[in-house]
């Protein structure tokens, strides 16, 4: 059975590398560059871990897989001296992904592998497959085929099975008014893999934002937001990403003091 690593774990490793370089002094620097501060143990909450089976005994690699409604990510970590193939260069079978019976999601586009001029991949290999998102909870079932070789030998072809649930991305839609316009947006996004909750600028809280994976802060046209402007300026600081729309979006961004603000000239 392969070892599971989360995206958060890979982020943490990057952070640890930098922390080592800076001999511990980075901690004091963080307020300089972070506004809300990234969670050093942060993970992509809607990127669910999947089950990977079929790893041979004593295989010189570890593997993990995660997915959200739009993307499957497989990470292979080969031991030093071993390589896999991104394309057919006459060595071993290149990495190939196939959806199998029971999968409710479809591939969107080609398999994405790291670029390598020689067609050989070593070390940490991130394999990415975009999916066509659909409404509600889904299930992914896929097969990953590849070969790995060292300078002297190739192991027999490897076939891994990847499976698990796909949960919708939790999205908080913040609107000036809960009206038909807001309903249309919620319905549209619901059909594309998002679990949408709707609230208003008046009622939104940091806690409600951070209980989701993502915030979408909507706006109507300039001067048509029925008093929501002041609320946009007081929008909560969130840990989750914000997609800020239109006029209220510029006010939200400016009020949060970002290096992405409109201004006076």
């Amino acid at each position: 059975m392969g070892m599971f690593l989360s995206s958060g774990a890979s982020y943490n490793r990057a952070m640890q590398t930098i922390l080592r370089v800076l001999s511990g002094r980075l901690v004091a620097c963080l307020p300089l560059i972070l506004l809300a501060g990234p969670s050093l143990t942060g993970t992509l909450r809607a990127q669910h871990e999947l089950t990977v089976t079929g790893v041979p005994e004593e295989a010189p690699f570890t593997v993990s897989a995660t997915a959200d409604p739009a993307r499957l990510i497989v990470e292979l970590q080969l031991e030093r001296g071993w390589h896999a193939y991104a394309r057919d260069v006459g060595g071993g079978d290149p990495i190939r992904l196939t959806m199998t019976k029971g999968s409710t999601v479809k591939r969107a586009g080609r398999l994405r592998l790291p670029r390598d001029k020689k067609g050989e991949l070593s070390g940490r290999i991130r394999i990415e497959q975009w999916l066509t998102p659909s409404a509600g909870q889904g299930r992914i079932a896929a097969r990953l085929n590849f070969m790995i070789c060292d300078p002297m030998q190739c192991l027999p072809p490897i076939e891994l099975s990847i499976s698990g649930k796909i949960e919708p991305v939790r999205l908080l839609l913040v609107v000036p008014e809960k009206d038909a316009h807001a309903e249309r947006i919620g319905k549209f996004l619901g059909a594309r893999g998002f679990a949408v909750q709707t609230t208003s600028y008046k009622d939104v809280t940091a806690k409600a934002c951070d209980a989701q994976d993502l915030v979408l802060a909507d706006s109507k046209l300039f001067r048509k937001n029925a008093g929501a402007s002041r609320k946009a300026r007081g929008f909560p600081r969130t840990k989750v990403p914000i997609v800020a729309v239109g006029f209220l979006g510029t006010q939200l961004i400016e009020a949060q003091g970002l290096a992405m603000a409109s201004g006076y000239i």
Partner: protein
Amino acid sequence: MDHLGHGLALQHPVFQHPFKAEFEWVEEPRPKHYEGFTSPLWPKGVPATYRLASFEIGKPDGFNPTLVSHEGFFTDVPGFENLAEGHSAKALGSLSLARQGKHFYWGYSIDPDRMTAGAKDTLVNALYYMHSKRDSLTVQFVCKTRASFKVYTYLGRDSEPPYMRGVEEHLPGSLMPKARATYTRSFEGAETWVSQYLDYIYAGKAGMIKDKKYGWLFDIDEDAMKLGTPNSSRKSLERWIALSKGDQAEDKARALRCLERYVHPKIAPKDGNWTRWYATYKDLICFIDSTGFWWQLDPIALERSPTK
């Protein structure tokens, strides 16, 4: 801004994954007020005829706003993504789709009844893209960048009558009182001032003035000018470090003041050993105007993972 966008960064994931966004395009002659100018998405300027993508079905009954990158507010932040410009009556460089850290700006309607097919796919892609940015680093804005001063040299210059408030009021209003004496209030004066001082100005430091209308006021760094070291260049940083070890007392003092002024105290060496400090930090730092004119940790250095 209306319902159109141009200069789209079409290879960016927000236009590619999971849906390949297909827009309806219209061709238009380049507006007169775009002539002779460049922007982050049009580094060589807009051609005589250019394409615009429809994000909404028809013109909105009012105005969509844009983020005004041409004013030099934020585009110097490493990792900032300019993805589309709006069809703006104001100036080239008005962003309608952009990202910095965990924040994404969408300048059009997201009502499915108003969005075009291309806009719908792009919005969904942008949401999935941002979903993966939970750990991205949003950088705090402190002051306008020096690029904002360039705008005054042309904004409204060809209008009839010319728009004079920029050069007569706003440019000098953005300077520390003493620095205003270096400036003549005209378009020609703005051009001369920008060519002479732009590489040496700074703002946002302790002891400087934060004006209610113009924000942090700018001053001219006489130390950097005397040394001939533009304050944001890496060569200047390396020269200051070299001079700080030298025996020319005046140059050494100027160099040390520059190091103190521009290297953020949170990363500056406590023991004054600038050479050793630079060997450690060389690949991890960048200069950013909009955070307060600092050499500081590069925000994207912290985002890099071993696989990138």
